[in-house]
C-alpha cells in the first residue's frame, strides 16, 4: 500500500472547529460585558443583567428556527411579520375564549401555516427563498394591519403574562424557556438524522441530493419549523408586552438575522449552530443594551445592527474561502 500524502493540516484532537468558533464568540460577549461594566454604572446591576438575559431570550426565540433555514443556505425574512400575525391571532383567541392554552395553539398553528407556505414557495414554486419570504413578509404585514384595523389588544390573564414577564426562582421566565428552546433546537440540529441532512444540504446541496437526501421534503421541513418557532415565540412576546398590535414585528427581522449571522451560522449554509445563535443574540443584546446605558440615541440602533450584519457577513465570506 502506498503512502498517501499526509493531510495538510493536523486534525484538532480536542476541540472541533465549531466549538472553537463558539468559544471565540463567548469570549467576545465576555469582553463586551467587561467593557460595559467598567464604562457604565448600571451595567453590572442584577436588574440590568436579568433584563439583558430576558431581551436576549426573546431575540433568540425568533432566531432559533431561522438558524435552521440559514443552515440550508436559505433565508426567512418573514419571521418578524410571522411573530406579529401569530401574536395578534393568539391575542384575539385568548381574549375571546379566555383560554390561554387555545391562544398558544392558535399561535403555533398560524406560525406553522406561514412556515409551510414559505416552504412551498421555495420548493414547489421554486422561488428563491429571499424573494419568497420577503413577499410573504409584506403579505403578512398587510394582513396583520388589516386584521387588527388599528386596534390594540391588551390585558391578558396574569398567569399567562408570567410566561413573558414573570420570574421563577429569581430568573426571568423566558430564560427557562430559552433553555428549553435551546435544547429542542440543538437536539433537532445535532441529534436527529434530519438535522444531519440539513447540515449536508447547506454544505453541498448537489452532493446532498446525489447522496439520496430527499431535498424538497427537508427544505419544506426547515421552513415549516422556522415558522412554527416564530409562532411559539409570538406567545412569549405577547406575554411580555401584554398587548398585541400590528407593528410589533417590524423591528424584529433585522436583529433576528443579525443574531444568526453573528452567532457564526454562515449565509452560505452548512456551518453554524443553534447555540451559536444564542451567543449571537446575547452579543447583539449586550451591544444595544450598552448603547442604551451610554445614552446613545436610540435611532443609532438600526444603523449599528446594519453595520454588524455587514461585518459578520464579510468575516463569513473570508472564512468560507479558508474553509474550502
Amino acid at each position: 500500500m502506498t503512502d498517501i500524502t499526509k493531510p495538510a493540516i493536523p486534525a484538532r484532537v480536542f476541540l472541533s472547529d465549531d466549538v472553537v468558533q463558539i468559544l471565540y464568540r463567548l469570549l467576545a460577549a465576555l469582553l463586551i460585558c467587561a467593557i460595559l461594566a467598567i464604562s457604565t454604572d448600571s451595567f453590572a446591576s442584577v436588574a440590568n443583567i436579568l433584563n439583558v438575559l430576558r431581551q436576549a431570550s426573546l431575540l433568540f426565540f425568533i432566531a432559533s428556527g431561522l438558524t435552521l433555514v440559514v443552515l440550508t443556505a436559505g433565508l426567512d425574512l418573514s419571521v418578524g411579520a410571522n411573530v406579529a400575525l401569530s401574536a395578534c391571532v393568539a391575542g384575539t383567541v385568548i381574549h375571546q375564549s379566555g383560554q390561554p392554552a387555545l391562544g398558544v395553539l392558535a399561535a403555533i398553528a398560524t406560525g406553522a401555516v406561514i412556515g409551510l407556505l414559505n416552504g412551498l414557495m421555495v420548493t414547489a414554486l421554486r422561488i428563491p427563498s429571499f424573494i419568497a419570504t420577503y413577499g410573504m413578509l409584506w403579505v403578512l404585514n398587510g394582513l396583520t394591519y388589516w386584521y387588527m384595523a388599528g386596534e390594540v389588544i391588551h390585558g391578558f390573564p396574569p398567569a399567562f403574562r408570567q410566561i413573558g414577564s414573570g420570574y421563577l426562582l429569581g430568573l426571568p421566565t423566558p430564560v427557562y424557556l430559552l433553555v428549553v428552546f435551546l435544547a429542542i433546537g440543538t437536539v433537532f440540529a445535532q441529534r436527529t438524522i434530519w438535522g444531519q441532512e440539513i447540515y449536508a444540504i447547506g454544505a453541498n446541496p448537489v452532493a446532498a441530493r446525489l447522496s439520496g437526501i430527499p431535498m424538497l421534503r427537508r427544505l419544506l421541513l426547515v421552513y415549516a419549523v422556522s415558522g412554527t418557532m416564530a409562532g411559539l415565540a409570538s406567545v412569549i412576546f405577547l406575554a411580555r408586552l401584554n398587548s398585541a398590535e400590528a407593528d410589533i414585528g417590524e423591528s424584529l427581522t433585522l436583529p433576528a438575522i443579525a443574531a444568526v449571522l453573528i452567532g457564526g451560522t454562515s449565509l452560505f449554509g452548512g456551518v453554524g449552530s443553534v447555540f451559536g445563535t444564542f451567543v449571537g443574540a446575547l452579543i447583539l443584546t449586550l451591544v444595544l443594551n450598552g448603547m442604551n446605558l451610554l445614552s446613545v440615541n436610540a435611532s443609532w440602533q438600526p444603523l449599528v445592527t446594519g453595520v454588524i450584519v455587514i461585518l459578520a457577513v464579510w468575516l463569513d465570506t473570508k472564512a468560507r474561502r479558508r474553509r474550502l
Partner: protein
Amino acid sequence: MAEVAPAISANPLLRLPGVAIVLALLVVAFAIAAPGFLSRTNISNVLVQSTLLLLLSLPMTLVIMTEGLDLSMGAVLTLTSIIVAIVSLDTGSMPLGLLAAIGVGTVFGLANGYLVAGLNIPPFVATLGTLGVAQGLALIASDGQSVVGVPRSVSEVYLAAPFGVPLPIIIGLFAYLAFHGLLYHTRFGTYIFALGGNREALTYAGLSPSRLLIAVYAVSGAMAGVAGLLMTARMNAGHPTAGLGLEFDAIAAVAVGGTSFERGNGWLLGTALGVLAVGVLRNGLNLLALPSSIQVASVGALVIIAMFFDGLRSRP
C-alpha cells in the same frame, strides 16, 4: 431600437407580455368595481403618484439585470428626502437640496457596489445592511421627527403643472427616456446586459465587471436622491420613515414587468408598465376604501405571482 420583450415560452398564453395582461385586467376590474376610477383627475392622480415609484424602479431594473437586488432603496430614499428638507430649509435653495440628496444617495450606491463587487457579499445581504445604516441615519438626522417648513420651491416640484401637465409626470417621462437611452444607446447600458448574462464575456473583452457593477449601484443610489426631492415635495416635509418599504414596490414593478432575475434580461417598458400596475392596484384598492394594509398585502401577493410566472417562463 431593439427593446425586446423577454423571451416567452411556447405556450401562446404566456406569449403576451404578462405585465400587459395584468395591467389590462387590473384596469378593467377597477373600472367596473370602483366608481370614478376612469375619471381624468383619478388617472392624473395615478400617474403622478406612480412617478416616485418609477424613479426607483428604473434603476432597480438595471440592478436586477445584473442578478442583484437593492433592498436599501427605500431607506436611502427616506434619508435623502430628509436631506432635501434640511438642506433646502437651511439654504433656502431647492437645487442645493437636490444636489445634496443625489450626493448622499450616490455615496450609498457606491457603498453597495463596493460591498457586492469588491467584497463579494451577496447583494441582498449587503443592501439589507446598508438599509439599516440609512434607516438609522434618517432617524438621527431628523431627530425622529418630520422636518417641516420646506421652501415653496421644493413643494412646487410636485405641484407645478407646465402646459397643464403635472411636473412629476414630465419628470417621470424624462427619467424613462434617460434610462432608455442609457440602456440601449450607450456602451455602459450594453455592458449591463453582460453583467447578468455572461460576466466572462466582459473580461474577455478587456473590461472590468467590478467597476461596472459598482457604477450600476451608484446610479441606483443617485436616483434615490432624485426621488427624495420628489417625495419631500409631495409631503411638503421630510419624514423619518416615509419611504421605507418602497423598494419592495419597486421590485414588484420590475418583477411584474418581466425583467427576469437571471441571465441579464431587462425590459424597461415592462418596468414602466409594472409601475403602472402597482399604482393602479393601490389606487383601485384605495377607491374601494380598502385599508393600506390590504394594499400592501396585495402587492406582496403580486410579487409572488410574478416570480412564479417568471420561473415558469424560464423553464419551457
